[in-house]
């Protein structure tokens, strides 16, 4: 902060001189060209951001990759430079699917994929439904719009801890409704341990995530000109056809970004499972972030933890690249 303040006047004065000069020389041309040479000004503006990016992203990533090649157990935490170099051993352990560690990682990966598929799908479905239903104004629209954003605004731990309370076996709302009031289940079920835990996790994740989809899609819908709908209505198109022919195609570019963002957030989510289940998630809801956290900070095996992180990163990069490639090709095709 202090450095930016002290450099400001200097930059200001020197660059003002050049701009005044160029402004004077180009009296007839009101537009200043895009790539005008202003010496180092853009770099000076970027300097704090670049320094921080180095400090908090690039250096930690390099350290993370170096760590993944070392045998980094709790004995070397305070001096990780002394940890013995083991080459690819951590990776071999992580992907040895016949041994317990690799098997657990593979299982956790599958659980995360299933969870992400349902959580993203439902969040998108709820979001797009609500956005379409709130597209036209009616009484109570503003109120509902604000209400639907509440899960997004609530702090994760406060909201998820409330869900954890609702999923309690003996004093929770869910069992009270399902068992006592509706009689659907024979006896009160466990929701936060065992094979039901994945359902609990999906419900909470959808509750937390759909308002973001709603927000983005609602904004995108506001950019569709009303005349399109009016013209379609005059041509005899009903609501369903209008949604299929006008609304959904107009949403495609936003949907492509939205689905990718939702995928990345959901796949990487740590907050929801951690608050819902605690440090050790049940096997059926053992998301990858929690799994890596557990292998690193509970069993103190930082080397394999880092190797798993690097593998996760590679996976995300590949998925993102393939996705961007496919969607950009689709976009070009639709334009042609």
């Amino acid at each position, binding site marked *: 902060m202090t450095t930016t303040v002290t450099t400001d006047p200097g930059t200001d004065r020197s660059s003002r001189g050049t701009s005044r000069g160029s402004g004077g020389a180009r009296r007839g041309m009101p537009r200043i060209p895009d790539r005008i040479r202003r010496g180092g000004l853009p770099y000076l503006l970027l300097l704090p951001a*670049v320094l921080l*990016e180095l400090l908090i992203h690039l250096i930690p990533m390099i350290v993370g990759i170096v760590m993944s090649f070392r045998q980094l157990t709790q004995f070397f935490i305070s001096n990780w430079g002394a940890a013995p170099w083991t080459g690819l051993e951590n990776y071999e352990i992580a992907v040895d699917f016949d041994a317990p560690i690799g098997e657990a990682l593979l299982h956790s990966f599958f659980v995360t994929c299933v969870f992400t598929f349902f959580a993203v799908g439902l969040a998108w479905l709820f979001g797009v439904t609500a956005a379409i239903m709130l597209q036209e104004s009616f009484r109570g629209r503003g109120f509902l719009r604000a209400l639907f954003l509440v899960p997004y605004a609530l*702090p994760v731990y406060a909201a998820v801890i409330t869900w954890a309370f609702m999923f309690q076996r003996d004093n929770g709302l869910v069992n*009270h409704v399902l068992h006592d009031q509706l009689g659907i289940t024979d006896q009160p079920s466990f929701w936060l341990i065992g094979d039901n835990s994945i359902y609990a996790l999906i419900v909470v994740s959808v509750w937390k995530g759909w308002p973001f989809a709603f927000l983005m899609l609602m904004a995108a819908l506001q950019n569709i000109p009303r005349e399109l709908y009016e013209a379609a209505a005059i041509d005899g198109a009903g609501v369903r056809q209008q949604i299929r022919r006008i609304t959904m195609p107009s949403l495609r570019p936003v949907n492509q970004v939205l689905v990718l963002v939702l995928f990345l957030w959901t796949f990487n989510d740590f907050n929801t499972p951690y608050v819902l289940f605690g440090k050790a998630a049940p096997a059926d809801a053992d998301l990858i972030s929690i799994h890596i956290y557990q292998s690193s900070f509970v069993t103190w095996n930082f080397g394999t933890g880092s190797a798993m992180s690097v593998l996760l990163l590679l996976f995300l990069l590949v998925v993102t690249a393939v996705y961007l490639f496919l969607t950009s090709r689709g976009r070009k095709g639709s334009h042609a």
Partner: protein
Amino acid sequence: MPSRDGARAARSPMAAPRSFLWTRRVVLTLLAGFVLLPVYVMISSSLKPLQDVSGKFRWIPDGLTVQPYIDIWDTVPLARYFVNSLIVAGAATVCSVVIAVFAAYAVSRYGFRGKRVFTVTVLSTQMFPGILFLLPLFLIFVNIGNTTGLALYGSRGGLILTYLTFSLPFSIWMLIGYFDSIPRDLDEAAMVDGCGPMRALFRVVVPAAVPGIVAVSVYAFMTAWGEVLFASVMTNDVTRTLAVGLQGYATQNDVYWNQVMAASLVVSVPVVAGFLLLQRYLVAGLTAGAVK
């Protein structure tokens, strides 16, 4: 079906048929119920005595009490956690937004060598999982502490630094989008009139971008306020934030659910109120940058 709907729609172009209105009513009611369910549980349970929340769930509380709201401050040092969260989230927000304003201005208004590398880096670090940075940052902090005596691990400053891993790229990215949506003619005209680039930034671009800057600040603050991962590793008894502190209501014998709910409500009210008050601003600000 198309002909009947079409005829009705044609008479008054935007009027939806009755069936759609009923579907809308039912669907929106269900969604509102889904959203409100935990909110109702939070509020009603926070007003129940302990024996009531420990027994079977009841929709209507037996007797109302405000005792949980008094007890929450003594069961755990909630006030201290509150102050810690406020400092950490506030500082992370201010740092990332101030730095992002300069960076986004450079990217939005100038062409320069390395621009693409910078924007791609910012965009991609935004999508990396936090766990990726947690392990190395933890080790780096511990090592810096051992060699220089600088206590980053466990300190608020260290935690703020880790929060920048997500709030800085997010702020830069959102502000680039927002600055791009402000007509260039505005600041170019100011520069032609003899303003320097920095004056153009502070006199023209920043004032025009107030909604966007407010939106980005609120989102950055909200994300930091709700952060759990770094807070659970990088804090100690003194610097603990609300995210970790709320777990303190669970003792070995009992969970004080009424106090958990009261505390959750207390920590939620400031952010939710701020969010809802600024909501119109926020939606416009967020989407100017993101939906193009």
